[in-house]
């Protein structure tokens, strides 16, 4: 889709806890040997956008070079009390919520200014018809950015990839489990096809 040799910045977007960092780490480890950031079940573990430069993906004898930008999960609300349920002291929870809000603002800024394509990650066990998903896909479309939808967590029993395909029929949906490494061949084929 792109022609010149400059690596494209591909933003990994989606709601909190969709598995964005797990996916970013999987891609980075597979092709560079290093991880991008820590993964966690606690929402808003990623509170700063992190970039991994020059990730070379090889498909069918051809090399595609991209920069991966792992972004904080986007939401319209953050309540520090949510973190208290994860055995956190109030001071830590308040600090985490403040960092989380800064991270969301940062993610939105990157989306408007600094990414050339988007991988939109969704948890296949969750209802995709949320306002945040509808708004973010609308924002991405309004910028005419190429976008791939990744239906993550297919290793879980409740996963429903079809529900995601039905919610966003205008875009290609790729099923995967970033945690287990399932269907990564198709993931890399599609990344090369869309962002190479």
């Amino acid at each position, binding site marked *: 889709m792109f022609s010149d040799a400059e690596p494209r910045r591909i933003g990994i977007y989606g709601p909190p806890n969709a598995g964005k960092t797990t996916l970013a780490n999987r891609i980075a480890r597979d092709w560079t040997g290093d991880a991008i950031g820590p993964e966690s079940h606690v929402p808003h573990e990623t509170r700063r956008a992190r970039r991994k430069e020059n990730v070379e993906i090889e498909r069918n004898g051809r090399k595609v070079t991209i920069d991966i930008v792992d972004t904080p999960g986007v939401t319209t609300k953050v309540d520090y009390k949510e973190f208290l349920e994860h055995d956190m002291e109030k001071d830590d929870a308040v600090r985490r919520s403040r960092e989380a809000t800064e991270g*969301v603002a940062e993610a939105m800024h990157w989306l*408007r200014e600094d990414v050339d394509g988007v991988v939109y990650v969704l948890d296949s066990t969750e209802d995709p*018809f949320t*306002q945040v998903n509808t*708004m973010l896909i*609308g924002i991405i479309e309004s910028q005419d950015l190429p976008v791939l939808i990744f239906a993550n967590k297919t290793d879980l029993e409740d996963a429903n990839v079809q529900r995601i395909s039905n919610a966003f029929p205008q875009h290609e949906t790729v099923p995967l489990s970033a945690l287990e490494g399932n269907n990564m061949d198709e993931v890399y084929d599609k990344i090369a096809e869309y962002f190479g």
Partner: protein
Amino acid sequence: MPEVTPGDDGVQIDLISGARMEGLASMEKIRLILDGVRDGNIVILEEGLSPDEESKLIEVTMTEISPDEFNGIEIETYPQSQGGQGFLGRLMGKEETKKLTVIGPANQIQTLHKDENLISALVSRK
């Protein structure tokens, strides 16, 4: 008409017409919405916001969240109708953003049901 001041026993709903929003700059629209929501009001926009304005609304909301005071917003619009805002439409300058939008304080409004034709929400007092 006499002015009525909302007391503690009600929830104020502001229905803002498309005409009222039309003359405002993006940040003025966002300010109008967030000032209302931060006062505990439910704001209903007849014609909604553009994707770019929605993006800025999320960003500005995040900068205003403060523990025990403001947790952010709940926002609901009908899902985009297919083909209403396609690439060709934008190319022809016919960007379709008109969609009824409901915005309220996250701790006072809860979406009960949403589909292409119906948004059902529960609003509570502060």
